[in-house]
Each structure stands twice: as structure tokens, then as C-alpha cells.
């Protein structure tokens, strides 16, 4: 899957104000209090979330994930971009 060109991997993902997250079993539930909606991430999504929201840049998060998992680089870049895009559109993160 091709990476979304709109996602700048040089930027940092910051959790939006008024979003709370909690790990439930192997999954993560994200609650956006402003929109009164919640979202679930599976085990892989949870790890992407953790890396994306704690790394200095998306590129660093991507590199760390690539080192941890047996996945093609292009495939990961596409999947990672898609997740970031979804998180942004759900108001869960902002890129800075």
C-alpha cells in the first residue's frame, strides 16, 4: 500500500486535549470526550499508537516498529500512514 503523501513523517504525533486512552486486555480504547465517541485499536494498532505518541517524529516511530515486526517496509509505511490519517480524522491526535 502506498504511503499517504499528506502524512509528513517528520512531524510528531500529539494526543489531542481531552482524549483519554486505556489498555483493555491486548487492545486500546481511545475516548474522545469532545465528540463523545470512542475507538478501539487491536494489538498491532495499540503498538503503533504507543510508538506514534511517544516518539519524537513519526519517522522514528515507523523505524522502531519496522525493527520490532516482520513486515515489508512499504507495506508498513502504507498501513502506518492510514492509521495516522484515521487518528487525525477522529480528532485523537494532531501532528506538530
Amino acid at each position, binding site marked *: 500500500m502506498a504511503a499517504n503523501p499528506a502524512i509528513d513523517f517528520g512531524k510528531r504525533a500529539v494526543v489531542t486535549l481531552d482524549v483519554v486512552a486505556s489498555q483493555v486486555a491486548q487492545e486500546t480504547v481511545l475516548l474522545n470526550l469532545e465528540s463523545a465517541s470512542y475507538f*478501539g485499536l487491536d494489538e498491532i494498532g495499540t503498538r503503533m499508537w504507543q510508538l506514534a505518541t511517544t516518539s519524537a517524529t513519526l519517522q522514528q516511530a515507523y523505524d522502531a516498529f519496522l525493527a520490532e515486526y516482520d513486515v515489508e517496509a512499504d507495506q508498513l509505511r502504507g498501513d502506518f500512514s492510514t492509521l495516522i490519517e484515521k487518528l487525525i480524522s477522529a480528532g485523537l491526535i494532531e501532528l506538530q
Partner: protein
Amino acid sequence: MSGFKIDGYSVSGFGGMAADLPRVLAYSEALRRVITPESVIVEIGTGTGVMAMHACQLGARRVYAIEAEDGIEAARESAAQNGFADRIVFIHDVSTKVTLPEPADILFSDLRGILPLHNAHLETIIDARRRFLKPGGVQIPQRDTLMVAPVSAPDLYADVIEPWSKNPFGLNMDVGRRWTTQQQYRRRVQPEQIAFPAQAWAVLDYATLTELNYAQTFTWTAEAPITLHGYQVWFEAVLYDDIGYSTAPDQPMMAYGTTFFPCAEVVTLAAGDTLRARLRADNFSGTYTFSWHTQVIDGATQTVRTHLQQSTFFGGLESVRALHMRSQGYQPHLSRMGQIDTAVLSWMAEGHTLRVIAQQLMQHFAPEYPNEIEAMTKAGDMSVKYGEYHGS
């Protein structure tokens, strides 16, 4: 606006509220100030009816006493015994479904829980103010101010987390701790355990409020090293003019109690560090979700050293499976109990008696309802829950 049902006090619970002397005396004094012989009063949540009867003692011409819970039957009987049956109109329903025959001069209520941000309290007041009260009428209470202060309370904190941090088998129970620190507790600290000066979270002016959700960010800077365990939240009530009370930790204990939001872990600040906290209360379908974020900003580097985020949304021990079943795209399938309830509802809608419904239950759902007692119990429960009383 849909109908609201205020979370039930039992009759003994009503008794507890009615016997809370500082609260009752403050309400009495507020009523004494405003009641005239022409006063028409509406009370939302009359409970035992004690304040409705007291309003009559103070000279009110008419009191409409509304109560959703069954305890109103005791109130009705008490009013008759005390000679007020002709002046109090008891209405057994949720106030949002009630229409009054005349506008009221005075609207009074106490629908708070530990905090005024409790279930459908605010929506109920907004509705009652709009539909029941005369223009320029008096509201009691007039205003509540929510106050918040970080606390250093190791004893109280241990009380909350100890079941999960200590066990005789050396087991790791951190998962339980994650749940237990995302709940609202009715606990009160000692006044000396307040670590920083309290700040106002929200002012609820009942004559004008329209907002149900409240969010506020607070900062405090440490002048000396300090250890924090959570936040104490209370309210300062103004019933009328200078009459009011407070549930603050340094005030006499009241029936409401005070709220403690624990931190996910013990938070330490050095001199010069800043505590930044954000509290939110969001009303989702008539129930409040409280969320609290804690950040410690290092005084020397100005970087965030500690970041905790908690919400009562995650404190309910609801499983991932249950959350999935609540998601928008989920297509629910009726469980066996769902099939039974659906069948009973359809028989009710067709106008059958409970005896007939019980017989149908035994015929169609024999494994669950093998005898008449169990079938009648189920039919009766459904009748009370979903039926409308039209006399016997």
C-alpha cells in the same frame, strides 16, 4: 428532551437526606425568606415529603411535590397525617413528563449526588425552570460552585489501591489497580491534607445555566517538595442570598460526602515544579463521565515529567467485548433472554393478563420457566418495568 429518572434513593436513603440537619435547616431558612401566603411551589424530588410539608408550615398556598421513586407513597401518607393533604399535590413521575396546572413562584430541589454534576440533575433543573417557573420566580438553590484541590493523602490513597497492590500470594494485580484508579470515590481528606489552595472548577448558576459539560485546566506551582495522591472535589452551595453550605473538608460532614479522584500513581513535585491538572465532566445520556489529566512540568527544564490520564469511562470494568457491542457498526443479535423479553413485550402489547403471559412463557420457554411461580415472577417483573398502571 427525553424523560429523566433520577437515580433512586431508597426510603432509608431519603431518611438519611432528610435527617441531614445543616442541609435541612439551610433549605428551611431559604424557604422562610421567600414564601408568602400566595406562594405556589414546585419541589422536584420530594422524597419523604418533609420539605413540601415544611413549606406548608411556612404558609405556602400550594405545593406540587414531584417524585419519580415509590417513596412518594410514604410522603403522601405523611402529608395526610400532618393535615397538609389539601395543599400538597403529589405527582409520582419524572418531572420532565409532568405538566402543572399553574406556574410556580418558587422552584426548589436537591437532586445532587456527591456533586451537583450528577445524572440528569442539570437537565431536570433546566427543564423545570423553563416549564414550571413564573418569569422572575425564585429558584432554590441559586448557585453551586465546584471546587478542586490536589491532596496529599497517603492513607486514603492506600485505602483505594491496597486491595490491588497487596495480596498474600505475591501476585501481580496491576490490572485491577488500573481499573480502581479510574473511579470516583466518596472519600474525604483531612483539611491539612489539602496540598494546594482550592480553585473553582465550575459555577452552576441555576437561573441561567444551559451547559451540562464542564472542563477546566488548573495550575499550581510547588514551593517545596510535595507528594500528591489525587484531587478532592466539593461544592459550595448558595441556596438563597447569603444562605448556603459547603461540603469542603473543613466543614461539618454532610450527607453528600466529598469526591476523591485518585492519581494513577503517586505524583511527586520538587520545589519549582508546576502541577497542571485538567478536569472534565461529560454528561453522556444522563450519566456523568469524569476525566482527569495530571502533568508535572519540571521547574528546571520546563518539560513534562509526569503525564497521567484517567477517566471513569475506564473504571466500569466493561470488557472489550461489551465495548465492541456498543460500537456503531455492530449488528446485535438477540440473546435467549432478549427473545424471552421480546415475546413477553409482544404478549403485553396484545393485552393479555399476566396469568396468560405466564402460561405462554411456560409453553414457549419451558427450560427457563418450568413452573408457574417462576413464570409469574417474570411476567410481573416485566409488567412493573414496562407496563403503565391503569388500575386493577
